[in-house]
């Protein structure tokens, strides 16, 4: 209440000063004269702050960065940057990821953690999208008894769905709980309709391979497998940004090559407000958060 009052008092003060300035300062106002021209400062979404800078959507910039990274001849270092200040918690990334990878119920690659701070009415929310961290020291890799998951040279932690035996040791070992198990469930299960919906029978292209999931005595992979975010490797390979990046309505998710100093992500992760989750475990995640 007191805060509200002081805010009102402040606004009143400001307003009266402005009006006083309009009346007292400058030329005396004559009747019939031209109205006073007030020049508003330009606002960022509408145009450039400085006239010589062109406004460009970060997606266009990242697309250019991506093409450069794919054509430069050396192995890129893929990283993702998430600006938590821009995330509004719309879950568009979660949904688009599920669509892109045709995820069944219970399998999720990029949930957005919602955290309420304070209690009503002094309350705010913060959001934390959580893709796979693609750790440089991934705890999920050494535990796999059959070597079905490994760290690629470009930094992505890959899973071979045709080798995974489904022991779920990697699920247990991930400090970010970024892996989920495909129990073979379907969205239409226990619903009145008959059979699957067409989208449930589409193949997934994760890891650049074609898999059609099916529950059976011997399930068709990735049913019965550990699954996780691949940074949309199959899209990257075709010069496309990860689906969660392109669908972020607030442009809060960035993707690119951290070994390229010209890239947007390079510049972002070198800012002092870049942080990573659970640094103390030494996992060296490839996902940075701007706070």
């Amino acid at each position, binding site marked *: 209440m007191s805060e509200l009052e002081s805010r009102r008092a402040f606004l009143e003060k400001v307003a009266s000063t402005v009006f006083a300035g309009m009346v007292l300062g400058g030329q005396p106002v004559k009747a019939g004269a031209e109205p006073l021209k007030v020049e508003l400062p330009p606002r960022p979404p509408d145009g450039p702050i400085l006239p010589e800078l062109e406004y460009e959507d970060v997606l266009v910039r990242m697309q250019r960065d991506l093409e450069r990274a794919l054509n430069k001849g050396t192995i890129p270092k893929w990283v993702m940057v998430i600006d938590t200040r821009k995330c509004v918690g719309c879950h568009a990334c*979660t949904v688009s990821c599920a669509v892109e990878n045709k995820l069944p*119920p*219970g*399998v*999720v690659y990029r*949930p*957005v*953690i*919602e*955290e309420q701070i304070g209690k009503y009415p002094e309350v705010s929310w913060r959001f*934390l999208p*959580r893709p796979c961290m693609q750790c440089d020291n991934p*705890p999920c890799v*050494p*535990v*796999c*008894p*059959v*070597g*079905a998951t490994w760290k690629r040279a470009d930094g992505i932690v890959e899973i071979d769905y045709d*080798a*995974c*035996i*489904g*022991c*779920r*040791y990697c*699920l*247990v*070992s*991930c*400090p*970010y*709980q970024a*892996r*989920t*198990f*495909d*129990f*073979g*469930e379907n969205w239409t299960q226990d619903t009145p309709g008959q059979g699957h919906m067409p989208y449930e029978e589409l193949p997934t292209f994760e890891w650049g391979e074609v898999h059609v999931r099916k*529950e059976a*005595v*011997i*399930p068709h*992979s990735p*049913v*019965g*497998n*550990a699954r996780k975010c691949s940074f949309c490797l199959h899209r990257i390979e075709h010069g496309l940004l990860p689906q969660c990046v392109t669908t972020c309505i607030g442009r809060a998710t960035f993707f690119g090559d951290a070994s390229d100093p010209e890239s947007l992500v390079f510049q972002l992760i070198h800012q002092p407000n870049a942080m990573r*989750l659970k640094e103390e*475990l030494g996992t060296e995640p490839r996902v940075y958060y701007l706070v």
Partner: protein
Amino acid sequence: MRAWGWILYGVLAAIGLAGFILRFATGHQLAGYGSYVPWGLWVAAYIYFIGLSAGAFLLSALVYVFGVRKLEPIAPLALVVALASLLMALITIWFDLGHLERFYYVYLRPNFRSMMAWMVWLYTAYGLLLLSELYFALRRHLPRYADRRGVTGFLARLLTRGRKTPFTEEEIHRDEGILRVLGTIGVPLAIAFHGGVGALFGTVVAQDLWHSPIYPILFLTGALLSGGALMTAVYVFFWPRKDERWREISLLLGRVVLGLILFDLLLEWAEYSIPMWYGVGPEFKALWNTLFGPFWYVYWVFHILLGVVVPVLLLLALGLRGRIGAIGLASFLVAVTFLAIRLNLVIPSLVHPKLEGLVHAYHDHRLTFVYFPTWFEWSVVVFSVVLGFTLTYVLVRILPVIEGRLLKEVA
């Protein structure tokens, strides 16, 4: 009494069979675990069974390696129980796999940085070792059965290549020597594979409760206690001849069980008291939840009351004063309720969220931090138990496991 036993067996077998069929027909869909609590009853049951196996084996090693002659009569039986428990453990964990048909990949393309790969390889070695130990422990009795019809006669002829002359003292002595060598290999092997199971959990940095150097030790002590208690209960209740020697051995085993209960309790005190002392942090929260959370009774009723207090009182007040039945009952309680300890090793760390708020991020029944085993999961465990019991029973029926004779002859 006997009839009731068979009725119980029949009911359990039916439940187990239902679980077995459901596991193949529906995969993991009826199980209660999910992606945030990825392991459940089956993993707990598996480390329980494998502990029974290691414990029973180490008991046999007392005879074959350390020359504790007094326990000699139960050594072959301990090997049989170890073999049956190993089978129970492996079948349970096999059912836990998402792709049952790919289990052999652990042999074809092992990753030896994984404790799990080590475990499977060590089990295989251990299983082979158990079979050969059993062979060398029993083959001296086999020529007597070479003329028999049926499975016993067939096995006797097969394993001794049709030999009918009894084994000489010299040959038996040589077999004893081989047994000592095999047992001597077996002891570090059993310590390695069961300590390895402890390490499988202990090395996981993401799980605050597991990530403790006491885990391998805790697993080994647990194996000795649960396996020793199981063997004691089996010996006290099912040994066909209840003579003076039976009394003596039972008393000795009863004292061993009492000592191990108390030692295990001491280690558990270390496991709980150290992380809880500050009263803050994830370990404290998870342990507090184990003690006073929704499943408090697993700890207090099944573990402390039925697994420690009652058995200790039974042993001190009755068992070690000559009431052998009380030793059997106390040991039976310890062996059965040990599953509660195994459950409390596996589950509490998993139901503790690793990222606050994750549970509200995406709603699904596989993405929660609540776990309770379903009937389906229990029925699959029952299948393993019935299988282990059947194997033990069949082996003592067809092989001269008890005092060099078949069960029917001794009874």
